[in-house]
């Protein structure tokens, strides 16, 4: 055998390196191409929406009800509906999801039943959203008599994002080092003291991110909302939650009929007139911006809350 530093040996090594580096290049090209397809598709979609919808984005567009005249139509009832439904969704999904996540991580015994529950929770995230719609139609709308209301819609979407919140909660909790947890227990803390004083505060950033990502998904959901009976044309607002008379708050709005942004969009897209297409594009633009803002908020809050925590 030739010694390692023999010129023939070196040349052989260089040939092998050059050969393998070609694969590096190929992998790079393939990766960038795949990424570009995704990015360019998004830019093209977003760009055409901006071009079509931008001229319609005036103040009146946000403060007008839908109308038969495209130039007078707006998204007031849709964005108010979407906002109120998101409030209900968050109010229901956060406590349920966080409690379930904390239970599974901190309290549940590690046995077969827990494992089955865990697999089911993960699988729930993959159930088509229209199935949630059907479930909600039977349960909330008819069985519980909540009707085709904001409350029904909010609870439906809460169910839909529950697995996302649970999984995010568990992952955030799991990222807390064992040493911190043992530190609390070693001082004589009970399980609940450890959870409320340490586990929850330190995992708040992760939980919040999960909640916002869940809401960002819920905001675009159409199928389950149509299933439980959202209106496609609605020219009034639910009564305000804040009243000028005692007791100053009202929950009447929960039981009101509603529409949401994606349904308003769908409604306009299915109209034959060209002008309504521009309205749809403008509404779509608002929806995309709302989603991006929520994701941005998630990133910001994550950064803020995690700034003091290093491990």
């Amino acid at each position, binding site marked *: 055998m030739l010694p390692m530093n023999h010129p023939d040996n070196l040349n052989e090594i260089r040939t092998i390196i050059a050969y393998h580096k070609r694969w590096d290049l190929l992998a790079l090209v393939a990766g960038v191409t795949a990424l570009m397809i995704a990015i360019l598709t998004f830019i093209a979609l977003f760009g055409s929406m901006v071009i079509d919808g931008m001229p319609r984005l005036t103040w009146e567009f946000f403060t007008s009800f839908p109308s038969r005249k495209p130039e007078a139509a707006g998204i007031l009832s849709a964005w108010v509906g979407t906002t109120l439904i998101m409030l209900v969704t968050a109010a229901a999904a956060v406590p349920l999801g966080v409690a379930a996540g904390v239970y599974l991580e901190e309290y549940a015994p590690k046995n077969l039943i827990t494992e089955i529950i865990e697999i089911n929770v993960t699988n729930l995230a993959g159930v088509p959203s229209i199935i949630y719609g059907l479930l909600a139609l039977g349960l909330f709308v008819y069985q519980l008599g909540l009707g085709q209301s904001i409350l029904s819609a909010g609870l439906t979407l809460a169910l839909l994002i529950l697995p996302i919140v649970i999984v995010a909660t568990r992952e955030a909790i799991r990222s807390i080092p064992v040493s911190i947890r043992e530190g609390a227990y070693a001082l004589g803390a009970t399980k609940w003291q450890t959870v409320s004083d*340490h586990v929850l505060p330190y995992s708040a950033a992760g939980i919040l991110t999960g909640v916002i990502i869940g809401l960002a998904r819920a905001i675009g959901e159409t199928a389950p909302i149509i299933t439980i009976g959202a209106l496609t044309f609605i020219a009034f607002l639910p009564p305000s939650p804040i009243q000028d008379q005692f007791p100053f708050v009202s929950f009447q709005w929960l039981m009101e009929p509603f529409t949401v942004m994606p349904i308003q969009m769908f409604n306009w897209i299915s109209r034959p007139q060209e002008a309504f297409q521009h309205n749809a594009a403008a509404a779509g633009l608002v929806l995309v911006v709302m989603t991006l803002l929520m994701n941005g908020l998630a990133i910001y809050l994550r950064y803020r809350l995690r700034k003091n925590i290093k491990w």
Partner: protein
Amino acid sequence: MQIFKPASGHTHSTVQKSVVNKLNFYYGGYQALKNIDMMVYEKQVTALIGPSGCGKSTFLRCFNRMHDLYPRNHYEGEIILHPDNANILSPEVDPIEVRMRISMVFQKPNPFPKSIFENVAYGLRIRGVKRRSILEERVENALRNAALWEEVKDRLGDLAFNLSGGQQQRLCIARALATDPEILLFDEPTSALDPIATASIEELISDLRNKVTILIVTHNMQQAARVSDYTAYMYMGELIEFGATDTIFIKPKNKQTEDYITGRFG
């Protein structure tokens, strides 16, 4: 070679604080501790030494029932705690009560991501202390006892993570001291620290021996010789030899202990 330096100005006490009787411990089906008998003397430092995997940390963690946090662990035998003669391993004794009486400092400094003040005050808070003046007084005392007060008195509101590694470990000691524990457990407290921080922790342990009973696990024999009054040598889950540190280090009775201490093994 002189490896043992007598602790200066410290008198040996023979008052028993705790007695370990026929202690067996199992991780599921695996027996990690075998039939251990030992004494812990009051206001003395007792060191647990032995090669890694010999069960010294497992033994230490029996004293504050840390093993109860994980499923399928179980104890046999007893650890009697004086003055009340209670077997702290008994299922009737709440592990939380045991942890309130016996504090622990861990291998890696593990301050909470809270302020310096809140870290030290946490043990008091979970005991229901709410009065600001009492909290402040006891936090200051604990920090003084942990030789950290002078360094942090002007920034008690700062995050504990901003302290250096050695300061963080002294903070953890202050946190454990704040509640006046009867025994303070140290699980290799200097293994994550540099030599200077290690020296300051060792000095602190020497200072604390007049105030509290200390049980320390260390993989560093010189450390055991420097800080402890009593030493227990463990091997494969068994207690091979236990006695006054000078006896163990100068004329051990057991051949295995001697081999380990002279560096022929381990």
